[in-house]
C-alpha cells in the first residue's frame, strides 16, 4: 500500500521534471557533448600518465579504463539525480519553502531526494556502460552469475555512499544556509575517484578510505570486475554503505529539529 503510493508519486515527479527539462532541448545536446569531451579528456590524461609507464599503482592502462567507466556511470547518476535535487535543498532552506515540503503527507527525504531529474545525465550513464562493455572485452573478463551479483552489489553500495555524502553535505545547509561551495569541495575530492587508489601516497590513501570513503566508490567495484577483490573488501564496502545510509537518515531527522523557517 505504502510503497505503491510512493511509486505513484515518483511517476508524477518523473513526468513533471522531464517535461520542464525538455523545454531546454539544446541544453541537453550541449550537456551530451560536455559528457563526451569530459570522457575523452580523462582518457587523454590517462594516456599521458601511461605514455612511458606500463603500470600505475599496479594497474595497467586497460584496467585503469574500467575505473574511468565506473566513474562515468556514477558521475552520470550524480548529474541525473543527486545534483539537481540536493542543490535544491539549499534553495528550499534559503527561501523557506522547505515548510511546504515538511507539510506534505510524504517522507521529506524521499521528496527532496527524488523530486527532480536531469535527463542529460542518462546519456552519460550510457556512455559509461559503453566504455564498461568495451573494457570487459579488452580485459577478457568472462561474465558469470557470481561475478555479476558481486559487481551489482558493489556498484549499488557505491551509489549509496555517494548519495549519503551528497545528502550529508546538503543537510548541513540547515545550519549554514549557503553550502554551494561545500558541494564544490566534495566534487573536487570525488575527482580522485578517476584514478586507482594505489596510485596515491600512503597518507592520501588513508585519508580517502577513512575520512571520505572515495576509495570505496570506484576502486572496489573495478577490482571486482578484474577478479582481484578479496571478500573482506566487499563486505567492508557493504558495511560502510549501510552505516552511511543510516547516519545520513538520522542526521537529516536530527537537523530538521533545528530548522526554523525563513523570516520566523
Amino acid at each position, binding site marked *: 500500500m505504502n510503497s505503491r503510493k510512493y511509486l505513484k508519486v515518483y511517476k508524477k515527479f518523473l513526468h513533471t521534471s522531464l517535461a520542464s527539462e525538455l523545454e*531546454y532541448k539544446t541544453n541537453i545536446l*550541449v550537456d551530451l557533448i560536455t559528457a563526451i569531451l569530459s570522457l575523452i*579528456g580523462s582518457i587523454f*590524461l590517462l*594516456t599521458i600518465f601511461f605514455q612511458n609507464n606500463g603500470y*600505475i599503482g599496479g594497474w595497467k592502462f586497460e584496467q585503469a579504463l574500467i575505473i574511468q567507466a565506473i566513474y562515468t556511470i556514477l558521475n552520470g547518476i550524480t548529474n541525473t539525480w543527486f545534483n539537481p535535487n540536493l542543490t535544491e535543498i539549499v534553495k528550499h532552506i534559503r527561501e523557506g519553502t522547505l515548510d511546504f515540503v515538511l507539510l506534505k503527507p510524504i517522507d521529506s527525504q524521499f521528496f527532496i531526494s527524488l523530486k527532480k531529474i536531469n535527463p542529460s545525465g542518462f546519456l552519460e550513464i550510457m556512455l559509461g556502460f559503453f566504455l564498461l562493455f568495451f573494457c570487459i572485452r579488452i580485459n577478457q573478463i568472462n561474465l558469470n552469475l557470481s561475478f555479476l551479483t558481486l559487481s551489482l552489489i558493489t556498484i549499488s553500495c557505491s551509489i549509496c555512499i555517494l548519495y549519503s555524502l551528497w545528502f550529508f553535505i546538503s543537510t548541513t545547509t540547515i545550519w549554514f544556509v*549557503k553550502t554551494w*561551495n561545500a558541494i564544490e569541495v566534495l566534487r573536487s575530492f570525488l575527482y580522485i575517484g578517476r584514478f586507482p587508489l594505489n*596510485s*596515491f601516497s600512503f597518507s592520501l590513501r588513508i585519508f580517502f578510505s577513512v575520512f571520505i570513503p572515495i576509495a570505496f566508490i570506484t576502486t572496489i567495484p573495478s577490482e571486482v570486475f578484474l577478479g582481484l577483490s578479496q571478500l573482506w573488501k566487499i563486505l567492508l564496502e557493504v558495511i560502510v554503505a549501510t552505516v552511511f545510509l543510516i547516519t545520513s537518515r538520522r542526521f537529516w531527522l536530527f537537523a530538521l529539529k533545528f530548522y526554523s523557517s525563513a523570516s520566523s
Partner: protein
Amino acid sequence: MISNLINRKIFTLLKVQYSNMLEYRVEIALWAISGIIPFFMLNIWTNNNLNESINISDIMLSRYFLCAFFVRQFSVVWVVFSFEEDSLMGKVSPYLIQPLNPFFRYFAQHIAEQITRFPFAIIIAFFFFIFNPESIWTPNLGILLLSILSTFLSFLIQFLIQSIIACLCFWTEKASSIERLLFIPTLFLSGLLAPVVSFPAYVKPWIYLTPFPYLIDFPANLLSGNETNISGGLGMQILWILLLFPLFKKIWSKGTKKYTAMGS
C-alpha cells in the same frame, strides 16, 4: 576630470563588493579548498615517478603544481553564472539604465573576491610547504611581478571569454551549459592536471595555438622557475585579449538591442 570620475566609480564599486565578499568568508574559504586538485595530481605524478620521462625533478614539479594552484585561485571566473541568474531574475534591467556597463560591476566583484581569497590561498600554501619543505623557494622580484601580470592577463582572458558566453543569455536564457562545455578543454589543456610539456608531441604544437595553455601552464611555469618562453607567452596572452575584446563589445551591443525585460 573624467578620469577622476572613473577612478571614483571603480573605487566605490570595489569597496562595496569587498565588504559584500567579506560577508561570505566561509564560502570563499571552502572555494579555495576546492581548488586543491593540482595537489592530488602532483601526488600521482611523483608517487609513480611519472615525471622522470619528462625530465622535471620532483621539486620543480611540486613547485609547478603549487603555482598552478595559485594561478587558478586568482583566475577563477564565474561571471556567466551571476549574469545568468541576474538576467533570469530581471535584475539586468536596472543595471542597464545606469551609466555604467554592468560588466564593471561583475569585474569589481571578481577582484574583490580575489582579495578576500588571498589569505586562504596563503594558508593552503603554508600547509603545502609543511608537507614539502624541500620545495620552498623565493622567485626574484622581476619574475614575481611578471607572473602576477600574466596571472592577471589569464584572468582577463577568462573573464572576456565568459562575458561573451554570458551575453548569449540574451538569446538562450541558459548559457551556463555552454560554459560547462568550455570548461572541459580548460580543465584538461590548461595545465591544471598535467603540465603541457608532458603532452604527446603530436598535439603539443596545436595546443599552444589555443588560449588554454596561457591560462595556467604559462604563468605557473613562469612563477615556479620552469623553462618557458616569457615574451612569447605574454605576447600570446595579449593577442588573445586583443582578439576577444572587440568580439565582446560587438556581442554586447547586439545583445542589449535584443534584450527584452522579463514581465514587461
